[in-house]
């Protein structure tokens, strides 16, 4: 069994380089939103997070500063750590620092975290127990050749944990899709692509091919359920097929949906599982892959007592967590009984808590667009979310292109549906403040509100007609409004107010 679970050290090196690169990419996209999401002047000041979105088990170094220079400083240090991970400099310490820094960054503002972020920190966690510095790193170059295992095939509790983590992710994602929507109606992909806040141009265009939609839906379920077993059968061709199938699934998602870093992180996670076969083909390596990899010469730290037992503990934790989700979940909503709160909180402290029910079992039944309507002192109405253009509820652009980053999308979605009132007020106030500080007094904002435009998902895409939602958040409070209240546009009056 152990030799079947073995991974190739060169693939792990690629995994390390790729993960460092993805982390850099993630930090790069954060650099455009840094003042918005990581300082006290933005939507999520530190005190607001501590008051409403904090768990006692969390750990966050980023709290020490709320200024823009401070946030930039932390981001630069984080980036340097990611670079060090890529080149494999003092890899074990660098990996630990990268994981802790990412954990800290995520806890600084949990409201923007998307699935790519969650997977990224999970992979960084498993990286702590993997000898990914053994090949193609500065460490490997510095040490003499006997220090790292000579055989390319390697297995230790850490690599097994990493492999199992990836498998569990797809298995659970497939399991949640065992629902009529995906199996008999076969409209899962169609419904997901109907969510216009995610779909790319290609995704929208594909909607007109109903048969293709059904094929893709079934294909998704099959690949997600079959792929993990292909990954587990051994370090050979079948695993390569599994990696290929799952990677093509992610490529397909990346082309049709704007999920930003999620496909990238997933692809990197698969890169580390590439079997030795690939390297034999690419590098013309004639090394015979015989013998038990567990008995390869040289002791390695990740087979040591501490690293092994921690990795085994972590494997137990994630397997039992996912099993519990499986048992407790009624497929639409899995919740833990309160007596197990400590369990989810402890796992949450390390960000090992995971729920792989993306777009499943039933994708959201309505897509939405948001408008931040501001009434100015000169009587004009502008949309603060769209850089102060004149407000129209019929935007020309693709809905998914209206968000500067995916984090904005996640944040706005949370804000609109379940945001704390303090957060909602803060959001509108900051937008109004930004406008006012750039415009004359005659154009100042008198009041702001958030307006939703819902489009229910119908089984034929032409039937889906947008309506304007009633739920709106106001600032100042309606009672403090200056001037006469302006009525919301009524749904029957069409889209133009």
């Amino acid at each position, binding site marked *: 069994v152990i030799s079947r679970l073995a991974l190739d050290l060169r693939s792990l090196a690629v995994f390390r380089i790729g993960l460092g690169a993805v982390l850099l990419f993630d930090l790069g996209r954060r650099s455009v939103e840094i003042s918005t999401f990581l300082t006290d002047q933005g939507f999520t000041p530190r*005190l607001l997070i501590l008051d409403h979105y904090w768990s*006692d*088990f*969390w*750990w966050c*170094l980023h*709290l020490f*500063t709320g*200024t823009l220079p401070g946030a930039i400083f932390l981001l630069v240090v984080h980036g340097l750590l990611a670079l060090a991970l890529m080149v494999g400099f003092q890899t074990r310490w660098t990996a630990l620092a990268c994981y802790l820094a990412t954990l800290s960054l995520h806890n600084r503002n949990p409201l923007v975290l998307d699935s790519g972020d969650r997977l990224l920190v999970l992979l960084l966690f498993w990286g702590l127990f993997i000898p990914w510095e053994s090949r193609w790193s500065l460490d490997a170059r510095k040490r003499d050749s006997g220090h790292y295992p000579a055989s390319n095939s390697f297995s230790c509790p850490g690599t097994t944990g990493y492999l199992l983590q990836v498998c569990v992710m797809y298995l659970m994602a497939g399991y949640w899709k065992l629902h009529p929507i995906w199996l008999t109606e076969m409209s899962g992909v169609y419904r997901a692509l109907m969510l216009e806040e995610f779909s790319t141009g290609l995704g929208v265009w594909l909607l007109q091919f109903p048969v293709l939609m059904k094929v893709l839906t079934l294909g998704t379920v099959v690949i997600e359920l079959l792929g993990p077993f292909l990954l587990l059968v051994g370090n050979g061709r079948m695993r390569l097929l599994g990696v290929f199938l799952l990677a093509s699934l992610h490529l397909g998602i990346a082309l049709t949906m704007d999920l930003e870093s999620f496909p990238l992180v997933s692809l990197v996670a698969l890169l580390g599982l590439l079997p030795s076969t690939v390297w034999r083909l690419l590098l013309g390596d004639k090394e015979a892959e015989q013998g038990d990899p567990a008995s390869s010469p040289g002791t390695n730290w990740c087979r040591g007592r501490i690293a092994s037992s921690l990795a085994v503990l972590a494997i137990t934790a994630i397997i039992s967590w996912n099993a519990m989700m499986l048992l407790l979940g009624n497929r639409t909503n899995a919740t833990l009984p309160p007596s197990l709160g400590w369990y989810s909180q402890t796992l949450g402290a390390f960000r090992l808590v995971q729920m792989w029910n993306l777009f499943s079992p039933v994708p959201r039944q309505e897509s939405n667009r948001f408008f931040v309507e501001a009434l100015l002192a000169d009587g004009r109405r502008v949309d603060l979310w769209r850089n102060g253009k004149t407000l129209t509820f019929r935007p020309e652009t693709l809905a998914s292109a209206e968000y500067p980053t995916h984090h904005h999308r996640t944040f706005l979605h949370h804000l609109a549906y379940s945001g704390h009132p303090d957060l909602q007020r803060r959001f509108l106030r900051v937008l109004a403040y930004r406008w006012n500080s750039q415009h004359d007094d005659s154009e100042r904002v008198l009041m702001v509100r958030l307006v939703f435009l819902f489009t229910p998902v119908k089984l034929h895409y032409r039937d889906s007609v947008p309506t304007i939602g009633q739920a709106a958040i106001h600032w100042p409070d309606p009672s403090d409004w200056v001037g006469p209240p302006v009525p919301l546009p009524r749904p029957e009056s069409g889209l133009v107010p």
Partner: protein
Amino acid sequence: MVTAILEFWQDRCGLDLRSLAVARVLAGLLTLADVILRGLHLREFYTEAGLLPRPLALQLHPSLSFPSLHIANDTVAYVSLLFVIHGAVGVGLLLGYRTQVCSVLVWVLTMSIQARNPLVLNGGDILFSAILFWGMFLPWGKVWSLDARSTEPPKHCKVFSAATVGLTFQMVTLYFFASLHKLEPAWLQEGSAVYYALSIEHFATPAAEILLRHPELHRWMTWSVLGFELVAGFLLLSTRPVVRTLGVFGCVLLHFGFGAFLELGMFRWFPMIGLLALLPSELWARDKTSVSDEMRKSPVTVMLLLVTALTFAINIDSLGKQKHHLIPNTIREFAPVFASWQSWNVFTGQTLYASGWYGIEIRTKSGAHYDVFRDDKPFSNKKPRYVSRDYPTQRWRKWTMISSSLLKPGPLKQHVLKWWLERWNERHPDDPAEKVQYWYFHEKTYENFRDAPTEKLLLGEYP
């Protein structure tokens, strides 16, 4: 020319490895002692359940002075864990086990806890963190350490590097600028500073009371303190072993003299680390000493010399004599990281004349009045016998004095008063509190024991 300058300073700032080892042992001991003393009141000062929970600490400054590990989580369990690690690396430093790593960790953890609650710090803490900063770059684990057992004994017994220059200058700066700050009437013409200092009852020990009864001594003591501080820096820089040793022991005596009459916590111990490091080689062996010159052209050397210059410049700025600061504000913001943000104006200026005591009055439902500041005894307006004994530790003394000056209306004030009220209710569930009032009994010190009226000031009340 350059060699001549370097040789000149090499004679003065080269430090002996054995002196450094002694300094390291003391630094480790003091780290441990500091952690234990802080740990006695861990919950009160460093956790969410205490007087300064994290949101309040964050509100005090937009950025803490250091990326504090102690701010990353606010629970008692986590902070206790950090304290245990802190104590352990202190022992590591003491024994010289992996000295380099332990030095860095001790520095990080000390800076980190200082940033978590800056309202319990005094000048000694600033000096301690400065010494620990230089310690990271000093070879103070080369002899008399566990590390030394596995390496060959060093060829030279003295070492000259940017770090030895930095540490020497830090100590010289301390005494020299402390004396420059004292060039004011109370210390010069009147010679009354000792009288005023002994009258500050927050600090005065019982011994101070005895000394207060001998006014004929005050003037001479004032002038000798000032005189010694003026020359101490030059004694410490001397190349003659006897003079240098005299300088070191003179300074140690000075601090212990202060400590005998004034409760200053660990302030008297922290400078000793730096002073011991300056002890001359001749004290350890008679033979000819050789110096290992480690002043190389490297980025680290340049950085350390810049930090030394920064410390010096900020000390000049602290005198407030010139119109503009030498150091622009953008750079000053980073100075606390190197403990360069220092001003040795202790016992000068207005602080000399203010004395008094605090009281926190709890009125209970049953109508009784208690003083929670004094072990829940009945409240009275009478002055306690020894005010300085009101404070369990130096941290409490500084907290009370600093936080009271910050007690403007605002969240901190609300929280502190509420904290005392809830603490009472926890301890006395049978007689819950109705109101809490924070009092300061202000007693200005006038010249020549002239009687001063006591003003009773209400600092705040809740609810």
